[in-house]
């Protein structure tokens, strides 16, 4: 009888401990959602006033001179888009090709060396890359492409591509990894060459994963600040001419970083910078949503398509 009681007590204690730990973990888990909501709340609170303080005609004009109450955000938005899209255009073929090589072609020992190296690539701080870009890449671009200055959208895109590469490679490699061995065996058995197997079977089978990789890389590129600020020249011009890629641009992130430190709190300029933050948040949110939806699509179709 005594023994039984203590046994019940033990179970009760274990249950209580379990309940406490579960609650703790649940609180921690939900708190991250809370933090995201808080960030969003503050972003809206600080940024929304700008849409009432500044006329829409001014806010979406082409002149960004905050010192003189000209808050045209178009050159900044287009600047970010131009740099990001170019970066992805450079990083996509390189990243997918590297992933294919690492997963499908490279011998085992090479894969063991390459994978950690790619992860090291991701760990380089962007200030270091930015400095490298400013002192080495920019002069090189000015001399080889014969442009007036090496601080251009293209220089920024090159660095961003470099920064997005590790993300694209590792996610794309995981996607290739998930393609069942049977697909490859079947293709080879049908008489396909190794190249045909990779290009016509494995890569298309991993397509949704590769799209996710690109979206994540794009999310990394559009939010990157320090390196971009150091190499793009930060000129708030409209990047609409044909040579815009080889001219300086000003991105949204660089604008926020360069100006936030010296702005009077609560001023129109301050709200305008948070307004840009909202635009940036929405863009990254849409990109991540697109990435997530490809994952869901993949799941709904029961794996691969």
């Amino acid at each position, binding site marked *: 009888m005594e023994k039984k009681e203590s046994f019940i007590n033990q179970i009760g204690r274990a249950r209580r401990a379990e309940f406490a730990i579960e609650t703790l973990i649940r609180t921690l888990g939900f708190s991250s959602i809370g933090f995201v909501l808080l960030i969003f709340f503050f972003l809206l609170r600080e940024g929304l006033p700008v849409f009432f303080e500044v006329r829409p005609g001014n806010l979406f004009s082409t002149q960004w*001179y905050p*010192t003189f109450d000209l808050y045209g955000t178009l050159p900044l938005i287009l600047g970010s888009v131009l740099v990001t899209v170019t970066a992805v255009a450079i990083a996509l073929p390189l990243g997918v090709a590297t992933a294919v090589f690492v997963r499908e072609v490279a011998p085992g020992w090479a894969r063991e060396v390459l994978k950690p190296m790619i992860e090291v690539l991701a760990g380089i701080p962007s200030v270091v890359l930015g400095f490298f870009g400013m002192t080495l890449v920019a*002069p090189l671009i000015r001399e080889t492409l014969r442009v007036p*200055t090496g601080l251009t959208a293209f220089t920024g895109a090159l660095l961003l591509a470099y920064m997005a590469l590790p993300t694209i490679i590792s996610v794309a490699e995981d996607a290739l990894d998930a393609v069942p061995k049977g697909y490859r065996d079947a293709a080879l058995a049908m008489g396909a060459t190794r190249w045909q197997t990779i290009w016509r079977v494995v890569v298309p089978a991993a397509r949704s994963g590769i799209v996710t990789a690109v979206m994540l890389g794009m999310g990394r590129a559009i939010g990157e600040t320090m390196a971009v600020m150091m190499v793009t020249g930060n000129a708030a011009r409209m990047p609409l001419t044909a040579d815009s890629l080889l001219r300086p641009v000003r991105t949204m992130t660089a604008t926020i970083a360069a*100006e*936030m430190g*010296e702005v009077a709190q609560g001023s129109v300029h301050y709200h305008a910078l948070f307004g840009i933050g909202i635009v940036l948040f929405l863009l990254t949110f849409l990109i991540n949503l697109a990435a997530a939806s490809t994952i869901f699509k993949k799941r709904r179709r029961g794996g691969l398509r």
Partner: protein
Amino acid sequence: MTQLRECHQFQIRAAYILVVCLFLLLAVPLLVGCRPAPSNPEAAQVIENKGSDTLVNLALAWAESYMETHPEVHISVTGGGSGTGIAAMINGTVDLANASRAMKAEEIAAAEANGITPVEFTVARDAIAVVVHLSNPVSRLTLQQISDIYTMRITNWSEVGGEDRPIVLLSRESNSGTYVYFLENVIRLGDGDSDLLFAPDTLLMPSSEGISAEVRQNPNAIGYDGLGYVTPDQKVVAVARDEAGPYVLPSIETVNDGSYPISRPLYMYTAGEPTGVVAAYLGWILGEGQSLVPELGFVPLDAGR
């Protein structure tokens, strides 16, 4: 050295943004209604001094020299820009704000809304030098020509007696005091009704070092910066008020006798009439401290009278 400082400034900005984010996230809900307690100079003997990047080297030299003779006082000096310093003074986090421009009406209004009457002290004079690449044959420009260059009415060096090269415009960021001064007194030629702006193609560099780095390596570039920041690897251009006038190189003598056209006073601001340690320090700066001014490429006050 330059490189280290460059990185350091970027890091400060990054750290600042990070801190602001964390602050918004965690501290704001807890601290609503709280104000930073006014520092007690008698007990702490600490003087916080923050602001203009143009003034930061001079302010450091003053602080170091003053602390040698007054070991009981500790002075901490940070840069960040005139706007940052003034904002910090308004928020009560620093005792002395360094500024390379006079406070704007809206800043004074913000200070008064906070119960603070800012007091202005002219502590030194500065000249803005116009710099080009060492190999550039152009050695003299009128104010009108500089204005035309920065508004892109002149876009090739051959139009001002140089080689057939495009002109790349460099400027400080728009919240730098140097930017506002240059715009009002050079681009707009001191005409209050003028609405000329920097051309959108102007590259905005986040620091003085950014300008010198680009001028050093790009033969197309033209930049401007405080005389105190010009290094021997840049070529300083002689400036004339008009075509007839003498072309004058900036130097301590030419700024003193008023013959160099682009010079300005530098200020320190206190929140209310200074008392105690801060008053003693300011008195020292305006007297004995002036002997340090020429060593840093600025122009001392007395010599100007």
